């Protein structure tokens, strides 16, 4: 087994940059608060860094998501998010907006966002991981520790619910 890769700072930085947005959005999808999500992401990376000798890059990736997921779970249950480091940088978050949208498109998007927010947590997570993160059902299944069938079920539920809400719009 190759344990050395991740302890090399350059390699770790690469790993960080490559994964940070994926894991950030993974948590953001569960919870809307950016600051909380960012805290969790940084904590998870610290844990990977501190244990860099224990696994190779491939495994680190799945542990990263699993660590972040568990942090999220326990932070949420105990409702104590500790901001232990003040981030005073103003350009950390990038909110993407497409300016050339027509008014009707904007309206539609707004409606869709609302409909997505109304989905159950389980359905929303699966739907967004597929649509925004472009993940295949198999990857989502591995990430969430459920079967592909279950992913498809949640996806179908999401589609059905979205359609019901969007149809009124058209």
């Amino acid at each position, binding site marked *: 087994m190759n344990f050395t890769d991740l302890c090399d700072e350059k390699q770790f930085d690469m790993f*960080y*940059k490559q994964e*940070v*947005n994926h894991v*950030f*959005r993974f948590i*953001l*999808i569960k919870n809307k608060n*950016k600051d909380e999500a960012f805290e969790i*992401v*940084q904590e998870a*990376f*610290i*844990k990977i*860094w*501190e244990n860099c000798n*224990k*696994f190779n890059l491939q495994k680190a990736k799945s*542990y990263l998501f*699993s*660590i972040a*997921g*568990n942090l999220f*779970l*326990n932070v949420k249950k105990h409702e104590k998010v500790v901001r232990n*480091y003040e981030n005073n*940088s103003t*350009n*950390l*978050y*990038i*909110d*993407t*907006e497409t300016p050339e949208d027509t008014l009707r498109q904007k309206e*539609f*998007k707004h409606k*869709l*966002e609302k409909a*997505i927010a109304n989905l159950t947590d*389980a359905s929303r997570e699966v739907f*967004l991981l*597929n*649509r*925004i993160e472009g993940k*295949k*059902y198999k990857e989502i299944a591995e990430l969430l*520790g*459920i*079967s592909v*069938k*279950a992913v*498809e*079920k949640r*996806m*179908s539920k999401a*589609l*059905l619910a*979205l359609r019901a809400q*969007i*149809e009124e719009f058209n």
Partner: protein
Amino acid sequence: MKDFKNILKWLNDEMTNDELASFRETDDYQLYKNIVEEAKDINLTSINEDVALQDFKARIANRTKKKAKVISFNRSLAFKIAASFTLLIGITYFLFNFNQETLKADFAENKSFVLPDESTVTLNAVSKITFSKTSFKKNRQLKLDGEAYFSVKKGSTFNVKTEQGNIAVLGTKFNVKSRENSFKVFCYEGRVAVSHNNTKVILTKGEGVKLTKNNTLIKLRNPETSVPLWLNNESYFMEEPYTEVLAEFERQFHVKIISKSINTNVLFTGGFNNKDLDSAIKSITLPLNINYRIKDNEIILSK
């Protein structure tokens, strides 16, 4: 529910060009085209990777905490030998007491049995069932201590009694977990009646219940697999107390876990492989930033 097969296929990029062309002609496509395309660039915040990395480095620098040294190990062979030894003892240790038959699985093993009525049962590690040899066929009733998956032959009522509650079925497949800190029943086929104190819940395929700390039965999310994961040598936990995770680990590997110096009052989501101690211990400690040390048959956890 409507048939989503094609839409699901489309969203997973599994369609061939031909399939895609004909799918584009359907009403479904027209309906969903906008939804899935607009959803792609919904305003989900991203973060600036460089700024985030800088922030990360500052945090690392701020951490003066010393890393605890972890002794790496490879004892899986020793454990395998220990496990087979236990198995051997387990096999020769069938208890025939009067009319009572006891079937059990020891540490680090699963075992399947065919009952006198041709129903089958698979016991997870450290579990046992007891029933009357002579009257079982007439009166299908047994006691369970631990976790078991039952596939019941159609017939008269089949009763499973546990410390925490009773389960009654006709012919079905279901899993019961009855441990010190955990009582859960999942129905994989047919119908299952679970009673606890004075409450009774009927489960149908895909449903489950568990007993909460304040002694009430609550419905669980779908099991989402066609058989319990432990039958495939995986232990999986969904938002469950860490103490239960450790207890299951002890049963699967026949080790003692010393957890005095860590906070076990947390919830855990994740799982471990029941056959590979090395990866299993990592799976349950690394996500919570816990260090471990192996000493003989003991695993000592520390922060």
